């Protein structure tokens, strides 16, 4: 762009629009020929990729440059002086390597009005910045967000910057209270200190703010205390964000007088009390209200018509009910509605879906909302997430909005079959567990599988076979396409339905699958060999209680991340191959918690039968349990000694098979084991004493085998004194069974229960008796001979004293001698 008057190039905009283009590389250095543009006053090179090179020195020669935007340009270091510069934006230019940046900061021209240095990896205490000594008195905007500035905000820092309107220090490591001098910044409108560790009393902090502050961002700090009642005088406030602090007390009702307030976030504090209508009297401009995660109660009248039109509202964990809040009816602009855990015990009103027709995010989970879902939700054309889990909603699964990506209707009373076409093509999460859905899974699911990341249909009444996506009759998917089917899936949860057929073939394409639970269904046939190769990311494989048959494929051991293998209660046969029990993740003592699974809500859980109980592990706790359960099959052969390598395993259950041979001595390698069940097999030989080294073992069952010999009673095994865990092994002996061992070995407990112990006690008894008799022979005679006592009273007394003193001395010496030893 050229100047109209002179014809000189005054503006050069080489900004890369990152929406349209990838950051392109100005492959060579910026040519010094740019210098010919000596009258340039505007230069925008943002979002260019300069490959981390130094900013060329000649750029200091643009004497007339007033606006320089180098933000997000991949430059590497600091910039020379530019005397006329008014606007400098170096955001997200990595300046951490520039050692002289502090000095350069002090040499900034006095003409500067706007300085953006956010995300520049600057690391210093704020006190060491030369800002207050410089002459930046005209600076209007100072933006130092998302750096590594530490320490408190020093008193003198902002002394001269009386022109400052916007101060952005969010996302650093600032501590302590803001300085009193902040009040002198009369023109300050915007203060952003969010995501720091600012601490102290909120009332004190607000007192130090200039009166006309408009936007105050203090979210995610350590502020405490209560909001002051005089907050009602801060009438310029339009944005107040105090979320994620430790504020206590109640919200002052005077907040309702802040006529300019449009954004109010007090979420995740410890606020208490009742919110009444007058808290909102004059808040006609309020568009965003977040009071979630406090202990607040909404006490507004059912007929209340609020003065505001909210766009975003989150009142989760506020007590709103028991009736569905009718004031929502007037909020027709809502795009974000959160009312999870709001104690609503009511029918979903008929007007509801119309009112929220612009919604993008809806969360009414964890209430007791009843009513029937509409047949279609397609009219929610902007909806991205609909979260209604844990309510009492009835009806069928509605047709879904085209762009919906997240649907959670778990834990409701949804019934009937799944619709033939869900209506959406971008769905990532389809979570329908714990409903009453019946019928088969339609082949249209294959379409969904393109985008789906998690599919949870557990605890429903689904039956029949799963669609074989790539061979369906209309041949809409060629066989070569199967690689794409389900290629985004990480979670498949079909537990507890009546699904049948063979191990579903379309899983072959789910290369990122990490959680697969088909437990409690009617699946049949062999376990395919390709599980071990096509599903390399499996962490949880739960196939319990189906009718799978054949051998356990050895290739399962290729699943390096496998933490739970549950094949219990199927019809599996054959041996446990030594190379099978070689799961890498189970060999690690502290599991490299494989956190790739995005468990979607706190109810995401799996069940493990361990310690003779069914334990439910929820949300992130699923990553702690490592379990190998092959019980209730027809496995034969020996327990491979390689099992001892599974040092991280918490639960091992091989019970109710037909395993033979000895219990391997190597079992002591299972160092993390808490529960070991080998019962109901045909194991023989002695119980290896190495088991006593399993210090975490708290449940052991070896009953109903052919084990023999003495039960080892050292270490941890000594804490298992329940004889029923050894029952059904007729040749086992020793405690805790009642059967004595006839062998020559003696243990401590034998010593206790037999002759030796008796001898010891009789020795003690006779010793005590001997001393007592001797004592009374001497003193008894003296006591009962009246004449002796009267005549020789003093003498006897003296003798007694002497004997006592003598004995004490003797004993003290004896004691000293023992000590010396």
């Amino acid at each position, binding site marked *: 762009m050229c100047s109209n008057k002179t014809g000189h190039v005054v503006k050069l905009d080489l900004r890369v629009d990152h929406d349209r283009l990838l950051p392109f590389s100005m492959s060579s250095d910026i040519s010094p020929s740019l210098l010919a543009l000596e009258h340039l006053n505007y230069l925008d090179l943002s979002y260019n990729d300069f490959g981390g090179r130094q900013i060329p020195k000649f750029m200091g020669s643009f004497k007339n440059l007033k606006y320089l935007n180098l933000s997000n340009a991949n430059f590497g270091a600091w910039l020379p002086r530019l005397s006329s510069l008014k606007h400098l934006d170096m955001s997200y230019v990595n300046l951490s390597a520039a050692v002289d940046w502090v000095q350069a900061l002090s040499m900034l021209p006095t003409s500067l009005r706007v300085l953006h240095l956010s995300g520049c990896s600057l690391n210093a205490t704020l006190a060491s910045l030369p800002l207050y000594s410089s002459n930046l008195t005209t600076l209007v905007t100072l933006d130092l967000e998302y750096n590594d500035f530490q320490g408190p905000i020093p008193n003198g820092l902002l002394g001269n910057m009386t022109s400052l309107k916007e101060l952005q220090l969010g996302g650093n490591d600032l501590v302590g209270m803001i300085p009193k001098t902040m009040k002198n910044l009369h023109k300050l409108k915007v203060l952003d200190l969010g995501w720091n560790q600012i601490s102290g009393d909120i009332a004190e902090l607000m007192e130090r703010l200039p009166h006309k502050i408009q936007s105050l961002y203090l979210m995610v700090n350590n502020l405490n205390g209560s909001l002051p009642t005089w907050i009602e005088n801060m009438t310029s406030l339009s944005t107040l964000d105090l979320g994620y602090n430790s504020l206590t007390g109640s919200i002052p009702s005077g907040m309702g007088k802040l006529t300019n307030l449009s954004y109010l976030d007090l979420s995740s504090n410890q606020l208490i009390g009742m919110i009444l209508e007058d808290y909102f009297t004059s808040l006609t401009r309020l568009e965003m209200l977040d009071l979630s995660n406090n202990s607040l109660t909404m006490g507004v009248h059912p007929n209340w018509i609020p003065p505001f039109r909210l766009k975003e509202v989150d009142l989760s964990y506020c007590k709103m009910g028991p009736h569905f809040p009718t004031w929502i009816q007037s909020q027709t602009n809502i795009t974000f509605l959160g009312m999870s855990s709001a104690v609503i015990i009511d029918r979903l009103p008929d007007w509801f879906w119309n009112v929220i027709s612009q919604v993008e995010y809806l969360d009414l989970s964890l209430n007791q909302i009843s009513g029937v879902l509409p047949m279609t939700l397609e009219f929610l054309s902007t909806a991205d997430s609909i979260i209604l889990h844990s309510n009492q909603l009835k009806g069928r699964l509605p047709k879904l909005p085209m762009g919906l990506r997240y649907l959670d209707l778990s834990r409701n009373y949804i019934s009937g079959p799944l619709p033939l076409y869900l209506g959406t093509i971008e769905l990532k999460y389809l979570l329908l567990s714990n409903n009453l859905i019946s019928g088969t899974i339609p082949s249209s699911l294959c379409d969904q599988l393109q985008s789906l990341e998690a599919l949870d249909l557990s605890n429903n009444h689904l039956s029949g076979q799963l669609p074989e996506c790539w061979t369906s009759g209309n041949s809409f998917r060629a066989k070569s396409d199967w690689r794409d089917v389900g290629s985004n899936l990480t979670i498949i949860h079909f537990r507890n339905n009546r699904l049948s057929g063979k191990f579903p073939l379309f899983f072959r394409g789910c290369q990122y699958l990490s959680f697969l639970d088909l437990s409690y269904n009617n699946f049949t046939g062999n376990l395919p060999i390709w599980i071990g190769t096509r599903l390399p990311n499996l962490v949880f494989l739960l196939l319990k209680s189906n009718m799978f048959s054949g051998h356990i494929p050895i290739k399962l051991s290729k699943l390096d991340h496998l933490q739970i293998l549950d094949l219990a209660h199927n019809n599996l046969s054959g041996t446990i191959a030594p190379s099978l029990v070689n799961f890498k993740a189970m060999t690690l003592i502290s599991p490299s918690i494989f956190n790739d699974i995005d468990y979607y809500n706190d109810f995401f859980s799996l069940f493990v039968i361990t310690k003779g109980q069914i334990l439910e592990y929820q949300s992130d706790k699923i990553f702690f349990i490592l379990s190998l359960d092959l019980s209730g099959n027809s496995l034969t052969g020996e327990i491979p000694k390689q099992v001892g390598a599974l040092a991280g395993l918490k639960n091992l259950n091989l019970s109710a098979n037909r395993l033979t041979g000895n219990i391997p001595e190597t079992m002591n390698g299972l160092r993390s084991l808490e529960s070991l069940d080998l019962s109901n097999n045909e194991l023989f030989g002695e119980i290896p004493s190495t088991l006593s080294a399993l210090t975490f073992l708290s449940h052991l069952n070896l009953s109903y085998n052919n084990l023999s010999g003495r039960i080892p009673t050292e270490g941890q095994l000594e804490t298992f004194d329940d004889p029923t865990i050894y029952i059904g092994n007729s040749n086992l002996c020793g405690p805790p069974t009642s059967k004595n061992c006839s062998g020559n070995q003696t243990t401590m407990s034998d010593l*206790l229960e037999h002759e030796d112990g008796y001898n*010891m006690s009789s020795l003690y008894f006779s010793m*005590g008796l001997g001393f007592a008799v001797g004592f009374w022979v001497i003193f008894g005679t003296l006591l009962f001979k009246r004449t002796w006592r009267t005549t020789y009273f003093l003498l006897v007394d003296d003798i007694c004293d002497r004997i006592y003193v003598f004995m004490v001395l003797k004993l003290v010496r004896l004691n000293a001698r*023992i000590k010396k030893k």
Partner: protein
Amino acid sequence: MASLSLLPFSFVLFLLAASPVISTNSEGEALHALRTKLSDPTNVLQSWDPTLVNPCTWFHVTCDDRNRVIRLDLGNSNISGPLGPELGRLQHLQYLELYRNNFEGKIPEELGNLKNLISMDLYGNHLQGQIPKSFGKLKSLRFLRLNNNKLKGSIPRELASLSNLKVIDLSNNDLCGTIPIDGPFSTFPPQSFENNSRLNGPELQGLVPYDFGC
């Protein structure tokens, strides 16, 4: 009158409603309070999340079928720190297996409240102070192993009243005085008491004071 006659019924209902909540949560809180004071370099307590409704899925903690903690198995875990008095709140605990760690400080008196305790294995730590007299209340106790610590003082005579005690091991401490001879003590072998340099042999009732030499 009708309402009066309902009173006891509603009281029972209240008890039924209130009791499980109190018992399960308080046990988790007690264990968590214990954990906060411990150093756990090998992360064996990693799974102890106090926000869960009960501690039954925590590793090294075992519950009965009513979600009450009955075992604590932390033997040989490299844990150091004090034994918190909170342990005394695990009313249903049967097995306390804390052997071969680096627990230090005194054994809290409160452990005497564990009326259902069958086995207490604190051996191989750095515990100091005396064996609490309150152990005389552990009427279910069958195994008591406090060997290889730095315990001082005399063996509480109250232990002689523990009629179920089958195994005791107090060896390798710094105990003093004499050893009780009655009750279960009539059956314990001398090895249970060896290597306590100031322990002066069996109790000589009536002649030498019980805590002679302490």
